[in-house]
């Protein structure tokens, strides 16, 4: 079904289209949410928030960008807000003070020779390093690396200029390289 037809039905409030729309976009939304939150439950909660937001505010979509860009924008904003709220809650509940410890624990888990590093451990290392990036760098790297979006699309989603996105990605990769090399040094 074409995007225009889906949009028309959504704007008319035709509920039969919801499941179809969900099936079309759930992998995309979940992919971003999972990378942003690094947690299955939180990602699924965020996915629900995203679809509810999309269904409720579809009439505010001006169609000057692709529907997927708008959905990405909502997904990223919801995940960033959730992560901010989580930080505040963790800070108040003293979990904040154990964050560093958690990071060390994660590092200790992957203390295996390179030949024995399994897929999950590689994911843990890379995702762990991405999680330590500032929010904007993290968002840019997730959209670029895992969603394979162009600088232009990322700039629209993040409401930044293309050069700002380039700069964010550049700094993100520099920071990641430093962190990943440090991890390797610690483990060997």
């Amino acid at each position, binding site marked *: 079904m074409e995007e225009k037809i889906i949009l028309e039905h959504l704007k008319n409030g035709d509920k039969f289209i919801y499941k179809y729309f969900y099936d079309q976009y759930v992998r995309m939304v979940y992919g971003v949410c999972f990378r942003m939150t690094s947690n299955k439950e939180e990602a699924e909660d965020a996915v*629900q928030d995203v679809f509810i937001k999309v269904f409720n505010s579809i009439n505010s979509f001006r169609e000057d960008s692709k529907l997927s860009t708008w959905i990405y924008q909502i997904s990223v904003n919801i995940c960033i807000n959730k992560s901010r709220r989580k930080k505040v809650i963790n800070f108040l509940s003293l979990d904040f003070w154990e964050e560093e410890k958690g990071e060390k624990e994660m590092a200790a888990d992957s203390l295996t020779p390179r030949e024995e590093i399994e897929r999950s451990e590689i994911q843990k290392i890379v995702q762990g390093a991405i999680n330590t990036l500032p929010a904007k760098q993290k968002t840019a790297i997730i959209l670029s690396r*895992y969603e394979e979006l162009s600088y232009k699309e990322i700039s629209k989603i993040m409401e930044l200029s293309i050069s700002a996105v380039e700069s964010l990605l550049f700094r993100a990769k520099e920071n990641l390289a430093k962190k990943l*090399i440090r991890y390797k040094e610690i483990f060997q």
Partner: protein
Amino acid sequence: MKHKKIQKKFLLYIDGDLSVAEKLMIDQHLNECVSCKKHFEELADIWMKERKFEKPLPSPALWYDLKNRMEKETERSNPLRAIVGNAKLLLNSVITVGVVVFAIFLGSRFGSVLSPQSAAQNVTYAQSANIRDEFGMSYFDAVPPNSLAKDLFITSPNNKGLQK
């Protein structure tokens, strides 16, 4: 210091984000520095492998969770449904209170039938009192003044015991 600066650019080098001049500079350094080359190879291995992993998938039940949540939110946001919901709750409460009141009424109206002083029981006690009187046994009764037995004797029609 130079090593750190070079190492910082490794991911940019792998992803092809560097200028030709920067690439050449890194190539040259990697040819000269064994340690940096080792770091580079390890980093490239992790970075390339991780990208190829398939995307995470949501749980199949997620749609039903979403559907339920949307239905609940619609109910909450629809004033008519909210009123109907509240009315149902009110009706349930009224019915419960009504049943309790009716039960109390039934108890007070017909409860005496089931009490110990019911007619049938009175007859039984009266009969037993008559038998006791016949044999003059009631004179030997030691019925304490506040006991239930005292009341029973008083209510029996032919009671001529000590209490009377």
